[in-house]
Every structure is written in C-alpha cells, then in structure tokens.
C-alpha cells in the first residue's frame, strides 16, 4: 500500500422521516473517509504521480468500505460522489491528483457499473473541516432525484501534512423528490448523462 493511512472512518445516514412523512424504506447514504499522509506537504513538486497512484488505491479501498457500510450488493448502489480536503501544508492540486486521474476506475469496478462522471468537491482546510461530498446518479448524471450531497467531518483531520479523502454511495435519491426532470426509470445508461 502506497498510502500511509492514519485513520479510516465510515459513516451511514438513514432518513426515516422528512417533512413529517414516513420514508419507508429509509433513504440511505454511506461514506468512507481515509486520512493519509501528504507526501508532498510543504514542498512544490511538479510530478504528482505518487498521489495519483494513491488515488487509485483509495478508489478501491474506500468504495469497498462504503458499500460494506451500506450492507448492500454493490450493483444496488444508485448514486456516488468523491471529495478531498488538503491540510494547510498541501495544495489544492494535491486533492486533484488523488481524485481525478485514477480514483474513478477502481471505484466503478467495485460497483460493477458507473457510466456517469463522479461528482467531486475539494478544498483546503483545517482539523474538523466540513466536507460536502456531492452526489449524482452513477449511470446517468441528469437524474434529478439523485442530485444531493453528504456531509462528513473528522474532528482531528486533516492535520497540516495530511489529506482527507472521501467517497460516498447511496441506495436511493432524496427522500421526497418532486422537482421533475429525468427519473431513474428513464435511464438509457449509454452516455453517462441520460
């Protein structure tokens, strides 16, 4: 393993009621978050290959953890997202190196599918930084009922020389979706958009 992991946290959130109505079955989201050492903290390094490889490794590890936390068959995952928060001695580009080049392929492999772009967010932040992981349907980005986000935070991370890396998966969309748009029953699933 290339990543030096200090901590892994998993979060599960179930919504049983919204607007005083029962949500049955509840909508469920899960996130897996790793706190890793930033190999480039405090330096400017042109070649970010090492972080790109770490992203690939975490794509599989965190996807497996998040799906396991949800306790479902990976094929039943409906939406996904990813995010990173870089500690103060790192740069935003370090988050980009982890998230964008190679994290997606192993993440999709765990799920068996995933035609859509994996929505993402990134920031630099201190201990307890609040990270909102954007969510979108995994096979068709335009499915309006599944646009959402999941908030995660870890009180002691990221330290200055660390990066917090998160992925989220769901088995559902928002609790009471009613703003129209493409529905999940209408997905063609060819271009990742519709």
């Amino acid at each position, binding site marked *: 393993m290339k990543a030096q992991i200090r901590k892994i946290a*998993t979060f599960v959130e179930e919504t049983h*009621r919204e607007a005083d109505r029962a949500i049955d079955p509840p909508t469920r989201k899960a996130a897996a978050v790793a706190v890793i050492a930033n190999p480039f903290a405090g330096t400017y390094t042109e070649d970010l290959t090492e972080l790109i490889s770490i992203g690939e490794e975490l794509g599989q590890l965190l996807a497996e953890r998040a799906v396991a936390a949800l306790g479902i068959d990976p094929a039943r995952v409906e939406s996904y997202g990813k995010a990173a928060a870089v500690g103060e001695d790192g740069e935003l580009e370090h988050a980009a190196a982890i998230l964008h080049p190679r994290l997606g392929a192993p993440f999709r492999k765990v799920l068996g599918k995933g035609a859509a772009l994996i929505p993402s967010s990134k920031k630099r932040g201190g201990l307890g930084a609040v990270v909102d992981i954007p969510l979108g349907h995994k096979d068709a980005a335009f499915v309006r009922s599944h646009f959402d986000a999941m908030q995660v935070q870890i009180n002691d991370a990221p330290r200055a020389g660390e990066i917090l890396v998160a992925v989220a998966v769901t088995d559902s969309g928002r609790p009471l979706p009613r703003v129209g748009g493409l529905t999940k029953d209408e997905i063609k699933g060819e271009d990742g958009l519709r």
Partner: protein
Amino acid sequence: MPEIVVRKRLFCVEEIYHEGGPPPAKPYRRAAALAVIHNPFTGRHVPEIAFLMDALKPLGIEMASRLADLLGGAAMIQGYGKGAIVGARGEVEHGALWHVPGGYAMREVLGGAKAIVPSAKKVGPPGARLDVPITHIDASYVRSHFDAMEVGASDAPASDEILLALVMTDGPRIHARVGGLAANEIKGEDGLR
C-alpha cells in the same frame, strides 16, 4: 406507552491506525450510533417527563446492539459513553431522559458492564457537535481508556428534536502512555477499579 418517532439514524466507525507513533498490531476503533427523535415536550414546561424513559428502552437496545455489531460483537467492547443534544425549543433536562435507557441498553447488550456510563448533554442547533466521553466498561479509573468521540448530524437536532448518542470502543487510546490503573489490573467489583 408514547411512540418514539425516529427521523434519522446515523452510524460512524473510526479505525485509528496511528497518531504519529508506532502503529499497534490492531487499529483502535470507536463507533457511534445516533438517533434523531421527535421531542414531545418542546415549547412549554412539562412537569412529568420521566415516563418517556421506558419508551426509549427498545430504541436504546437496538442502537447498542447495532453498535456492538459494528465493532465485531459484544465481546470486543472495552469502552463506552453516551450523550444527547436537545433542540432549541427543548430543555437540557430532556437530554437527561437518556441516562437510564441509554446506559441500561449498553449494559444489557454487553452482558453486565460494571462502570457507570459517562455522559455529556447540551442544548444545541442543527449541526451541533458533542464530545461524548468514554471510559472503560468495567472500571472507571482505567486511564488508558479515557477518551471521547465527537458526534453530530448536519441537519439535527431541529428545534423540536433530540439527538441521542451511544458510543463504544474496542481498546485503549492509540498510543496510551500516561500510567494509572491498567486494564489488566481491574478488580471489577465496584465499577471503579
């Protein structure tokens, strides 16, 4: 019996591999189970509230069981704690309703833990964070097991809700080294030593 209305449940497991020192053979794990319930006593002073404690017992048992499962079963559990955040239109006394059912549930699930379950409570807004204190399940003075876990939910508690929390751990702090009573020195008679 009044119905307990649950809006949301949250679970969090933290695996801590190291904190700058030599990683121990197995990571230290902390887990939290949260339930966001409707507070039936908001907006007015209700003199008799204690009856809600019995109604909370099944929820407590369910949360404690799920929590123990998240850490590999009751036999793995070494530390525990509990807490509550009461929404803005409630009073801190409503959080105190969790002492009996929360503590009872964890003892029940863990098969007779002896130490008092440490707790924290407060009134707070949605997104408020609570540091839930943690001590050893059989002897409060075990110094290596004093800890806390921060919990919270972005949209809870609403002003008419209570966020209830239970926390369990499976070992000492990650690089515990400040002496005091050790876990292998527990007499286990009075819940303290």
